[in-house]
Each structure stands twice: as structure tokens, then as C-alpha cells.
């Protein structure tokens, strides 16, 4: 029984990271509808920016977090303005956008490695003395609890944004039909730019939190992104609640899956789940 509870806890912990990444990804995907490979590297940039502000410049931790998130957001915004927007204007195919985002991911990852070397670093100061909390006989660390809380906070914040503000309504309109939205006079490109900023800032935050929980390395983004994408699809692409739900569902399936099979099949299990959903419920859990 204790093992079962611990597995549930493990699933929730893993799921919260996936959910957080899915939030940022889903938010952007809803508006842009293309698979942005560079989303992962933005998370890495968030982690490294925090590292720079907090550990190298020695700023206050909370200030460093805010600065790092803004920085990540700006990078995402920049990618849109410099690369994706021009491509959209030329009516480039989704594949061209994919390849361009591949180029961006490759270049940015390499720049991080040049600036910070490829060494794996942990962002938390004390390795062995993290605060632990006992929950129903299982253990969770302070950082993991924070990730969980942050995920739900951001979910609520985004929901408020999307459903209670003008800006949010415009985003939803763009998700439904960008051309029509543009025709009725809304500056879709400006809004998409903002969407990139917010989504990338969330990714940056995810990068920082993962950095505290395990650590950062320049290539950490791709794996986070793939899991975030799986979570989004399972939950319902473009639907932010869906992404969160999908994240937890993925966490559960992975952890209970490797309980039955062994650890080295974890990625295969995650993708098998994806394929199962694509076959039987491609709209995801949330979408009808």
C-alpha cells in the first residue's frame, strides 16, 4: 500500500513538470498551430538566465527569477518577430517552420554551451538539505511542491486571461480562425507576439523549477518539449486545462508503466500512450 501511494505521488510530481511545460506550449500552439522545436530551448534559457542572475551576478533569488522569466519571454518574442512572423507572412509551410525552429534550437543550444559549458549544474544551493514533506506515507520535496502549486497558479492565471479579458478573447478568436480575426481588424501578429512572450516566459519558469529539482544542461529542452507535447495531445491540443490534465495522466502512465515493465522503456511507454490517443481519441481528453 505504501508503495502504491508513493507511486501515485511520483506520478503527480512527474506530471506537474509535464503539465507546466504543456501549459506554455499549448498556449502558443493554440494561436500559431505549428510545432515549435525551439520551445524547449527557451526553457533551458530560463534556467540559465536564472543561474546567471542569481549565482554569477549574485542578485536576490526572487529578483533573479523575475528577470530570468522576462528574459525567456523576450527570447520567445524575438524568435517570433525575427523568424516565425516573416515565415508566416510568406505563407511558409508548417514544415518550413519546423526546420526553421530546428535551426533556432540548434543555434541557441550551442550558444548556451559556449557561454556556460555543457556541464550539468543544479540550481539549488544545498544538495542534501532540502525540506521534505511527508504526504500519506510518501515523500515530496519543497521544490516539487512549488512546481505543483505554480502549475495550478499559472493555469488559473491563464484561464482568467483567456476568458475574462479582451486580450484573451482575441487569442481565442485567433485560435479558431486567424484569417477571419485579422479581417475584422484585430492586429493578429501583435497579439501572437504577446502570446509568444507569455508562453515562453512560462517555459522559462519551467526551466528554472526543473533546474532546482534536478538541474540544467544546454540540451535539456528537447526532452521536456516532447513530453510537454505528448501531454498536450493527450489532454487536448490548444486547451490549457487539457495540457495540465494530460501532463498528470502521462505521469501516471509512465510511473505505473515502469512498475510493470522496467525503467529503460519509459520513453517508449510515453510515446505508445501518445499513439494510442492519436488512434482512439485524437482530440484528447478535454476536447469533444
Amino acid at each position: 500500500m505504501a508503495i502504491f501511494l508513493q507511486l501515485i505521488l511520483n506520478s503527480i510530481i512527474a506530471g506537474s513538470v509535464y503539465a507546466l511545460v504543456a501549459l506554455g506550449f499549448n498556449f502558443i500552439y493554440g494561436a500559431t498551430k505549428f510545432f515549435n522545436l525551439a520551445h524547449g530551448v527557451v526553457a533551458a534559457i530560463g534556467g540559465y538566465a536564472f543561474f546567471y542572475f542569481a549565482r554569477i551576478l549574485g542578485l536576490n533569488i526572487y529578483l533573479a527569477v523575475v528577470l530570468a522569466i522576462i528574459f525567456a519571454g523576450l527570447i520567445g518574442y524575438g524568435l517570433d518577430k525575427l523568424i516565425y512572423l516573416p515565415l508566416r507572412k510568406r505563407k511558409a509551410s508548417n514544415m518550413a517552420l519546423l526546420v526553421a525552429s530546428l535551426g533556432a534550437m540548434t543555434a541557441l543550444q550551442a550558444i548556451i554551451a559556449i557561454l556556460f559549458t555543457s556541464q550539468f549544474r543544479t540550481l539549488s544551493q544545498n544538495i542534501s538539505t532540502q525540506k521534505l514533506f511527508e504526504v500519506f506515507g510518501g515523500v515530496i520535496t519543497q521544490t516539487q511542491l512549488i512546481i505543483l502549486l505554480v502549475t495550478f497558479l499559472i493555469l488559473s492565471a491563464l484561464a482568467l486571461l483567456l476568458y475574462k479579458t479582451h486580450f484573451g478573447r482575441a487569442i481565442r478568436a485567433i485560435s479558431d480562425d486567424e484569417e477571419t480575426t485579422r479581417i475584422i481588424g484585430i492586429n493578429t501578429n501583435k497579439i501572437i507576439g504577446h502570446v509568444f512572450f507569455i508562453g515562453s516566459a512560462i517555459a522559462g519558469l519551467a526551466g528554472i523549477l526543473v533546474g532546482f529539482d534536478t538541474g540544467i544542461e544546454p540540451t535539456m529542452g528537447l526532452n521536456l518539449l516532447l513530453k510537454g507535447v505528448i501531454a498536450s495531445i493527450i489532454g487536448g491540443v490548444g486547451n490549457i486545462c487539457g495540457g495540465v490534465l494530460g501532463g498528470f495522466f502521462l505521469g501516471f502512465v509512465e510511473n505505473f508503466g515502469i512498475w510493470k515493465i522496467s525503467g529503460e522503456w519509459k520513453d517508449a511507454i510515453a510515446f505508445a500512450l501518445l499513439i494510442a490517443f492519436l488512434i482512439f481519441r485524437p482530440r484528447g481528453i478535454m476536447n469533444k
Partner: protein
Amino acid sequence: MEYLIHLAILFAIYATLGLSLNLVVGYTGLLSVTHAAFYGVGAYATAILLTKTGVGFFTSVIFGIVIAITISFFIGVVLSKFKGDYYALGTFGFNTIVFAVFLNWQNLTRGPLGIPGISRPEFFGIDFTNNFTFLILSLVFLSLLYFVSRFIAGSSFGRVLKAIREDETAIAVFGYHTLYFKLAIFVISAAMAAVTGSLFASYITFIDPSGFRLMESVFILAIIVLGGLANLRGSILGAFFIILLPEILRFVGFPADIAAQMRQVVYGMILILLMLYRPQGLVGEYKL
């Protein structure tokens, strides 16, 4: 000279991979990112048969083709239900799963240890351990598969494929069972990739799972997007460019400690710039 011969062999191999993928992606419009899986199947078939049994190279190629056809048939059937971006994600999933099999089915593939000591082909007493003769063999394969591809593309079968790409529903209305066509080209393309894999295994004489992960499929996709979709000469050009570029960059005098990373930065930027200024590829006629 040996260096150039080596690069030429790699070029021939990747050009063949590009051709086979172009049939599926460029002509039929199916965004498949799992080509490395079939490439790997051929490579492993040859590796295992050549090292563990007395079977010759060409027999192993046949085996590779048979296995690739079986697996791709099954994968193709499942994938046929997916559309657009979901199709691509489904292929991501299959690539990851096949990679996991290469890595974890250790009794068969020796997992991460890989399979060393694969011999070069032997027939008619020609010495294929000489790279130059191997190059000739590779170019023969390339030409053969090029003509096969050209034949397919130019035939009425090829015209149906292009029609499927343009508007699948329309052509279905005319009574074409589009499923059979999509499946057929997917399987043919997989068989071609497997043959290339066999060639690769015999050339490098050592195979391990690392050459067949998801990023390899993305790499092959990049070749045909760069060269130009639905243009066979474009795939050859794309392969030439993509193999050559990193090697040329080896000679550019970057300072030693950041040289490799700088090359990645340049490589990524070139991808971006190409997409921005020539999204249909170098000689492409078509954008999805």
C-alpha cells in the same frame, strides 16, 4: 583523398535516404519523421546476420527489406488514421519506440554495446574493403534507387500520390482507395531506407542505436526540405549540402574551445536563413 571518398559515400547514403523519404513526404504529402527507424532495421539486419551467421551481404539486404516491409506495413496502417501534424507526432512516437527496441532488446542487438566487426560485402572477388570500390557500390545503389524513384514519380501511381497530397478527399471520390496508395508508398520507401541501412552498416563496420534516434529522422527531413520537396534532384542536392556543410566548417578557424559549438551555431543559422529566404528549398517546386 580518402577523406573525400568517405564524404562521397556518406553523401550517396544520405541522398538515397532523402530520395526515399521524398516519395512519402514530398510527393504524397505525408509528414513522416520516422525514417531512421527503417534505416536502422536494415542496418541491424545486416549487422546481426553478417556477424552471427555465414549469410552474405545481399541475403542480409533481402532480410532487412522483409523486416522493414512488415514493420512499416503495420506502422503505416496505424498512421493512416492520422492527419497533418498529428501524423508527424505519430511518426515521432514510432521512431522512439523502434529506437527503444534497438536499445533494449539486448539479446538481439547487444543494446548500447552495439555490434562491431561487420564485414564488407563480398562478391565477384571484388575487394570492398577498399573505400573507393565501396563508393562505386554506393553510387550504383544510389543510381538504382534514383531510377526507381523517378519511375514511381513519373508513373500514374505517382500522379495519384500527388493528387492525394493536393486533395485526398477529391481523389477518393473518384474511386481511388487512397489508403492502399499511401500504404504502398510508405512501405516502398521503408524498404529503400532499409537497403541504405544495410549499406551503411557494412561501410562503418560498427552499428549502435545512437545512429537511429528521432533527431536522425529530423535530419533526413531537413535534407529534403532544404533540397526541395517533390524534386528528386533536390534531395540529392540537399544531401550534398547537408553532408558537406559541417565538414567545411571543420576547417574554419574557430578558437579550439568553442569551435564545435560555433559550428552548430552557424549550421542552425543557415537552416533558419534558408527557410526565411528560400522556403521551397533550393530547387523545390512545391510547398505543402
